[in-house]
């Protein structure tokens, strides 16, 4: 038995393939949109993964450090270290700002990491070039997405930093690439904004008669020194000893240090449930509409393709072809179109995904779901087309 579908496709294979490619690009866009949504959620997860923490200790009753500002004293980590079950505790600061290199500036999240050896919580867990920070000042490790190269000098507030290492996929929940600098510098960067601001604040203090008293010559200097010192950090990242439950240690720190502590699931809830909830829903809504539109377009294309052959189908009926044969021809063609479209879509999405400014994550589950959806839609669409084809009057083949 000859394949009617194959014959028909052979007849006008160019048109068939191009229709498939067109369809594929549409499917590609849908897959990409799903990837954008997944990428957003993954950015949030990456932020948590990369911090290397199991507990986040933040200012009492705040959702810090990512969703809300939080500040706690930089010696709080010492008492946290003393809590049973804590293996490591490290200060960390986060500050989203413009980082300037020679001629351009990049929006980045500046992370202040405590000194120590590689693997300290907060440090970039892996690098793609260069080395980790070894000096306690003026060195930076940047995400490749910042566009900085090894040896570049970047300016953060009042100081210049040498880029000594590059890493990848270190992003804030908003997708901004991270720049890691030593903690002390980061504390200063958060507080000492620029030289003018420092000067103005010094002037303001010196004009305050309470601080500038002629009878007490050293007072003004002492006040200014205390004003230009920042002993706060945004969070303490805690790693647990094996065998200790995160919830128990968190409860213990909350109770005795009177700070707020989040475990990994809680933090994920904050990031994904609160911080990126609206924008994720926005993308999700768009994805749903795009999927519906794609499905409709696929259905219309198959339907019109069948209607375009209505004369030939009438001829087939005239020569006594069975309905089953005609139906299977239409369905085979529809599925073939779907398969070509899916392949093209997947290829296109994979090729253009890396060029997006924010992370696009194409996960296999989405791809499989997309594949199933394409097959189902093609089948449904072909059913409508089959119904139209079967209702055609064989007399049409000769008439009109």
């Amino acid at each position: 038995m000859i394949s009617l579908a194959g014959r028909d496709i052979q007849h006008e294979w160019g048109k068939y393939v191009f229709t498939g490619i067109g369809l594929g690009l549409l499917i590609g866009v849908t897959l990409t949109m799903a990837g954008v949504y997944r990428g957003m959620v993954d950015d949030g997860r990456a932020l948590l993964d990369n911090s290397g923490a199991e507990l986040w200790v933040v200012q009492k009753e705040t959702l810090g450090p990512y969703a809300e500002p939080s500040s706690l004293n930089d010696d709080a980590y010492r008492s946290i270290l003393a809590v049973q079950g804590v293996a490591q505790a490290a200060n960390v600061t986060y500050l989203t700002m413009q980082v300037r290199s020679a001629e351009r500036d990049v929006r980045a999240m500046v992370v202040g990491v405590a000194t120590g050896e590689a693997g300290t919580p907060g440090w970039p867990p892996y690098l793609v070039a260069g080395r980790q920070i070894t000096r306690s000042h003026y060195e930076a490790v940047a995400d490749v997405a910042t566009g900085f190269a090894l040896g570049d000098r970047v300016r953060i507030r009042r100081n210049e930093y040498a880029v000594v290492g590059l890493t990848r996929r270190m992003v804030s929940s908003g997708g901004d690439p991270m720049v890691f600098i030593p903690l002390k510098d980061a504390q200063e960067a958060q507080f000492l904004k620029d030289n003018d601001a420092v000067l103005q604040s010094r002037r303001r203090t010196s004009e305050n008669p309470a601080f500038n008293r002629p009878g007490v010559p050293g007072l003004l200097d002492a006040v200014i020194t205390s004003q230009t010192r920042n002993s706060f950090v945004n969070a303490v990242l805690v790693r647990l000893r094996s065998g200790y439950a995160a919830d128990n240690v968190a409860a213990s720190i909350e109770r005795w240090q009177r700070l707020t502590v989040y475990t990994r699931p809680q933090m994920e809830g904050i990031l994904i449930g609160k911080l990126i909830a609206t924008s994720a829903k926005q993308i999700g809504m768009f994805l749903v509409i795009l999927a519906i539109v794609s499905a409709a377009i696929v259905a219309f294309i198959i339907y019109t393709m069948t209607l375009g052959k209505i004369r030939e189908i009438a001829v087939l009926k005239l020569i006594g072809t069975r309905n089953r044969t005609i139906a299977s021809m239409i369905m085979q063609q529809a599925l073939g179109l779907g398969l070509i479209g899916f392949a093209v879509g997947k290829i296109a999405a994979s090729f253009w995904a890396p060029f997006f400014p924010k992370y696009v994550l194409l996960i296999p589950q989405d791809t499989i779901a997309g594949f199933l959806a394409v097959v189902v839609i093609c089948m449904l669409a072909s059913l409508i087309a089959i119904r139209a084809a079967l209702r055609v009057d064989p007399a049409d083949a000769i008439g009109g």
Partner: protein
Amino acid sequence: MKGLPLNRRTLAFVAVLVVLLALFAYVALRSGPLAPVAVTVATVESRSVAPGVFGIGTVESRYRYRIGPTAAGRVKRLLVDVGDTVAAGQLMGEMDPVDLDDRIRALDAAYRRSEASVREAQLRRDFAQTQAERYEQLLAVRSTSEEIVATKQQERHAADAALLATRAERARAGDERAALVAQRTNLRLVAPADGLVSARDVDPGTTVVAGQTVVEVVDPRSLWLNVRFDQSSTLGLESGLPTTILLRSRRGAPLPGRVARVELRADAVTEETMAKVMFNSILDPMPPIGELAEVTVVLRAATSSPVIPNAAVQRVDGQSGVWQVVRGGLSFTTVTLGASDLDGNVQVQSGLTVGDRIVVYSAKALNARSRITVVDRISGAAP
């Protein structure tokens, strides 16, 4: 039925499908979870590392003289300005003496008066002495009474005492004057040593309290740096070690120096150890006091042992280690790290042997099941 044109069409269609399938397969294998992770690999070498300590400090003067009055008063005049060179003993300024000069003159007069009093008492005593001697001679020839002689002798003693009193009075007046003159000298602001005027905090006419600095003199030959080092990296820091000093104003020109002393008291709040670092030569022009400097101290080199880049060190399940490439696959090896240098090399005390191949950079986080493909450098990362 099966003509050539149909065959050509079939071939073309099949060709398109094959290309599509090939691309699809490529995409499925090269992206997503099935794709291998690009890694760079290094071989563990044995060599010594020269650990370094990096700190920042400010330029300070070892000898800094803050000159000011010892009592509250008004600045009368200042003869020097910032940047002037002064020699030891040079007059730099003076406080307003107010009535001190008048009081000295008054004491001058009082002194002259007491001198006159001394002269008068001297004359009185000389006369009383002469009288007493004369009457003693008269008594010897019995020409006068004993009572009169006794009176004359008593007068002589009284004159002696009066002379002593006026002399003491004169000495008191002299000392009082000397004291006032000393006070007056104390109002002069004099350079205690050779140096450079680094600050002039007030101007003539200003009232200052006791101990307030009017002029500051530093010794430019005694410049050093007060450097703060992070405590976690200061093992082995000791005086005498060579350092490289990078002044903020002379970025491109590192200066040699040495650690003068490591302070015995560390900063408990900022968790830093302080040390003083001297320049090897006197700087001309002198860097401003308070200028920021970056100081790198090279510690004594550790003995040779396996060395890895610090980028290779990862943390898995709370343990530091490296991903070792074993027969094309990955296995995580926990290591004990030793000394490290500022260029990112770190010694391995245990866990690895020379010749082991370890992952240095990876395009994403690795796990034991990751498929890897070894590349020279990770794409997208600058060399």
